[in-house]
């Protein structure tokens, strides 16, 4: 599998034509990172608000339990359904907004990935936020702090590690997502120039080309799989490490 050497990582050429084969994974690494980072950036405000909603503002009320159940449901929906929904509902919406002519691309995939990773980002931050001791909050309130100031100065510093870890784990999820991204990213082997251009991610190229791949191309795809495995494992290990260290 390692017959491509280190050049595999930095070459941006991907040409499966017989006799003139070149394989480099840089395109897909960039695509994967762009979609995932974008997804994380979109997901963080949503997930953070939802966590605060459930674990602080409306803690213990019926509304909070409805919201958290619905967000949990989101985690249960299979990835292909997100892909279809993105393709038939989100993509036309993006076209009508005039953001990109076809609606495919990194932005669309990032958006759908963001929705997919929200439940992973919220579940852990919910627990850490609700575990912040009440005495600390009450002390701050008794000094005349508003609720926002309590959140900013008491809850955040106390729950920071848990929240960070949950976002890192959610990022790991986004990196490996396959089908939803495959359906929306446009699958073109070009270096993405902006967030609205099309591209390809590591997982989507495997899903797309595996069926007709053989020989060297198959090895290249498998090496991409290996790369993806290594990257996600490192990200997850960092997240787990943070949880363990501050638990």
């Amino acid at each position, binding site marked *: 599998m390692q017959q491509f050497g280190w050049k595999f990582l930095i070459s941006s050429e991907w040409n499966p034509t017989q006799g003139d084969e070149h394989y480099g994974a840089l395109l897909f690494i960039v695509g994967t990172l762009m979609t995932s980072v974008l997804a994380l950036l979109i997901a963080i405000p949503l997930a953070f608000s939802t966590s605060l909603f459930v674990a602080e503002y409306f803690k213990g009320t019926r509304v909070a339990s409805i919201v958290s159940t*619905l967000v949990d449901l989101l985690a249960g929906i*299979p990835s292909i359904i997100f892909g*279809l929904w993105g393709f038939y509902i989100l993509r036309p919406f993006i076209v009508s907004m005039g953001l990109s002519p076809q609606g495919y691309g990194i932005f669309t995939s990032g958006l759908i990935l963001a929705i997919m990773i929200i439940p992973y980002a919220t579940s852990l931050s919910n627990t850490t936020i609700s575990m912040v001791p009440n005495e600390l909050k009450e002390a701050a309130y008794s000094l005349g702090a508003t609720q926002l100031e309590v959140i900013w100065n008491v809850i955040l510093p106390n729950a920071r590690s848990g929240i960070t870890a949950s976002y890192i784990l959610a990022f790991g999820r986004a990196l490996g997502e396959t089908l939803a991204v495959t359906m929306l990213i446009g699958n073109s082997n070009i270096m993405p120039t902006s967030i609205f251009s099309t591209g390809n991610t590591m997982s989507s190229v*495997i899903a797309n080309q595996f069926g007709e791949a053989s020989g060297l191309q198959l090895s290249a795809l498998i090496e991409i799989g290996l790369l993806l495995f290594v990257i996600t494992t490192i990200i997850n290990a960092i997240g787990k490490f943070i949880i363990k260290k501050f638990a």
Partner: protein
Amino acid sequence: MNQTTILSQKANANDLADSFIGRKIKDRVFLGVVILLSLLTISMVLLIIGTLIFKGHHQINWAFFTQTAPNTFDAMMAKSSGQLIPGGIVNGITGSLYLVFIASLIAIPFGVLIGIYVYENQQSKYAGFLRDTADVLQGVPSIVIGLIAYLWVVVHVTHGYSVLAGSVALAIMMLPLIMRSTEESLKMIPDTLKEAAMALGTPYYKVIWRVLIPTSFSGLMTGILLAISRILGETAPLMLTTLGNPEITWNITKPISAVPLLIWQFYNDPNMVDLIWSSTLFLMGFVLILNMLSKWIAAKRKI
């Protein structure tokens, strides 16, 4: 204390007194933003589920559950004459169930046994290693697991796309989930229960079999159902391992279809588009019901 800090403290005190209304407003605005963004998040969920129900319900009929998927030509004919597309997804349903059944057959015994081992040997290095491995495994993207099952089973065992390969891929995905949930539910059992059995001279295997497993049974069930609901919708690993099959098959070395695979095929075939929504609705309903069932069992146990 030097001049500047005193001054800045004075300034701070003034600010605080002056901007009390400002702080209140900030507080309210932030609450508003939080509520707004939370509502946005939930509305996404409702929007997705709503779309599926709205678009999928009219294709769901008796044939949908009793006939195999139509070929492109039939679908095209029906579409051009304005009828519902004939056929259903029964080959996908049986395929999915068969795959999940075999995957469970592999993953449940292993998962439960490893879970019990890890629980019984909390401190041992090997248990910690197993726990870390499970964590790693849980984070591996599903398509990578599909690749591994391809390399192991499709290439070397069945020499072609097969049920077995798909089941192995799904079993690898189930294993860490079941293992961790077994361990977690065993942790909830009071130690006294185990000690009482031990004190009566019960052999170790009998303590596990007659005390640990029955008392944690609902916890085990929750874990298993959750794991099944997680893998039912998996498409990526199946694309690399089982390929799909237009007919119902029970042969473990042959390719087989599954509901998510059928959805993928429908998606790639412009004539079958109408079938997508009903299959998706079915899949989502199935997965969510399993999901809620497991949560319901878990909630009931807590009381």
